[in-house]
């Protein structure tokens, strides 16, 4: 692929893969209305899901809301993140509604400084995981529909009052999941040549392209998430909205290929819109919740979780699920990571004589768990996706009966025997990625004794990995005590 700025006849410099230079796809992505084009079908689909969830069959396997949300959306999301990038944020229907609303109501407020971090979204992420287990959301079309509605309302309210992409950057739990997972995506929105940016005086990629007749009129929005392209590093906080690509007057922003996970090994430089990773305990917590939340979410689908919950309930003498579930969440999302990571940080410090305090060490190495966490999400969600791949056909047939014929309920998906090796493959990739990252970080920390630093962190990775492998081979037990609707 030739770089667009290179002269004919001149030997083009070696450039990484750029999706924007791929015929047809690249042209489509450069089209200023491409985001709306992909958002409209998803908005319509969301509307159908909401209506079917509220008024359709109350049985989850027969409802579009539950089938599409908990099988197809989640499965496709992680697979697209793995194979390409954060394209689901690009197609986010919440933002289409928000943009439409902003034609009438312009937000005037700035998001409070105290909330300009990931703590709120980490809390919401945990809350969603908790509600998912408590109310068995997968089994309730009605509650699933309300979850979708809640997202739309929350996005509208937050971005209705607050400027820029406040909802995406500081609130949306799905967005945070995508930001962390996309650290392992092979594509990244980034500048093609930094020297072109050095010459740029307008900085349209962040300020937006202005009307030549009036500086105050923005004709193409710049990055709403405060990511200044020349200083941006990695996919954190990037929604792939393509605004910077469309705003750049020098056609100097591309969707470039890269080594997945590269941004997690990058030097600790100040990143535009984010700052230093080493000074962001909220980001480190997000990475930890991402990794251990993957285990927790998978754990909720296997038999032993019910035995643990029953045991906790009998110990506490309570009949409601919430207290025992809260203890389980605290154990897996707080106590377990705290113990494991603190132990590893202490041991690696002791063995190398490092004077680094525990917390900075935990923060630094928490990003090493991201590949492993992503692998567990992939293994879990791809299982449901592949084994239930074709179920959308009878569910859709049933929804629009009799136009698509008699529903073929026997259509399901790939056999579990085929999907399990894929799951194992994901888990192997995950542990390999985490170990490589940990070793890279260890080597940076101690050139003389990298193995001494590495071993405790590798042990944490192996423990988590063994837990994940054990979980994946547990027989599933999908229990639901809450049949909404």
């Amino acid at each position, binding site marked *: 692929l030739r770089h667009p700025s290179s002269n004919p006849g001149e030997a083009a410099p070696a450039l990484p893969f750029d999706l924007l230079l791929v015929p047809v796809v690249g042209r489509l992505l450069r089209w200023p209305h491409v985001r709306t084009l992909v958002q409209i079908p998803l908005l319509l689909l969301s509307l159908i899901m909401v209506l079917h969830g509220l008024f359709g069959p109350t*049985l*989850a*396997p027969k409802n579009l809301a539950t089938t599409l949300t908990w099988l197809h959306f989640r499965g496709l999301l992680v697979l697209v993140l793995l194979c390409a990038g954060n394209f689901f944020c690009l197609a986010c229907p919440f933002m289409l509604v928000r943009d439409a609303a902003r034609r009438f109501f312009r937000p005037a407020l700035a998001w409070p400084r105290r909330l300009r971090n990931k703590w709120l979204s980490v809390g919401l992420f945990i809350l969603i995981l908790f509600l998912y287990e408590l109310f068995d959301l997968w089994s309730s079309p009605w509650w699933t529909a309300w979850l979708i509605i809640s997202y739309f309302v929350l996005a509208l309210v937050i971005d209705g009052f607050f400027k820029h992409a406040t909802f995406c950057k500081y609130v949306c739990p799905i967005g945070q999941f995508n930001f962390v997972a996309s650290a392992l995506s092979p594509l990244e929105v980034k500048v093609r040549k930094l020297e072109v940016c050095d010459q740029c005086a307008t900085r349209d990629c962040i300020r937006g392209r202005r009307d030549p007749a009036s500086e105050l009129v923005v004709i193409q929005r710049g990055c709403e998430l405060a990511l200044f392209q020349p200083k941006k590093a990695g996919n954190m906080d990037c929604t792939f909205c393509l605004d910077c690509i469309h705003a750049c007057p020098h056609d100097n922003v591309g969707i470039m290929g890269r080594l997945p996970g590269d941004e997690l090994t990058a030097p600790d430089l100040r990143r535009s819109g984010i700052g230093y990773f080493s000074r962001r305990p909220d980001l480190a917590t997000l990475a930890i919740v991402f990794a251990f939340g993957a285990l927790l979410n998978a754990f909720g689908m296997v038999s*032993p979780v019910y035995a643990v919950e029953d045991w906790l309930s009998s110990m506490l003498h309570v009949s409601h699920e919430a207290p025992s579930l809260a203890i389980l969440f605290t154990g897996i999302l707080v106590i377990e990571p705290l113990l494991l990571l603190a132990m590893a940080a202490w041991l690696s410090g002791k063995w190398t004589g490092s004077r680094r305090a525990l917390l900075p060490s935990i923060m630094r190495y928490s990003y090493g768990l991201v590949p492993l966490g992503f692998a567990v999400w992939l293994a879990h969600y791809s299982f449901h996706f592949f084994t239930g791949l074709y*179920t959308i056909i009878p569910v859709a047939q049933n929804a629009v009966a009799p136009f698509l014929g008699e529903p073929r309920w*026997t*259509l399901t998906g790939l056999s579990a025997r085929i999907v399990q090796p894929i799951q194992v493959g994901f888990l192997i990739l995950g542990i390999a990625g985490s170990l490589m990252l940990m070793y890279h970080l260890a080597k940076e920390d101690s050139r003389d004794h990298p193995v001494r630093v590495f071993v405790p962190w590798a042990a944490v990775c192996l423990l988590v990995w063994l837990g994940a492998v054990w979980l994946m081979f547990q027989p599933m*037990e999908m*229990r*639901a005590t809450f049949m909404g609707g």
Partner: protein
Amino acid sequence: MCAYSVVFAVLLLVGGCARSTRTPGSIAVDAKFVPRIARSGQGIVAVNLSDSAARPVTGAHITAEGNMSHSGMAPVFADCKESEPGRYQADLDLGMRGSWVILLEITLANGEKIERRMGVEVKAD
């Protein structure tokens, strides 16, 4: 913990029995799922139909459909046979542990249709 993953038994919980309910046409439907073989979800769907005078209702056609609470699993189907007057039953294999919902579609001899739903928990011992 390992024991939980190895030893399983089907437990018929309270939800496994549908209460005897009376339809507008005064037909009482008494349905239950009876485990037949432990450590699996194999069992029998048993349905009793009676009229307002407690006389058995014969000649009905009953289809049982078992669905898991989670999307993505194939449903299981069975046609109930009338073993005695007003007593219908069918073998149903609920292969996976977890929450199942059994839908009963009852077509009476006069063509009247009745639908019933009952929950069954197939879970670890």
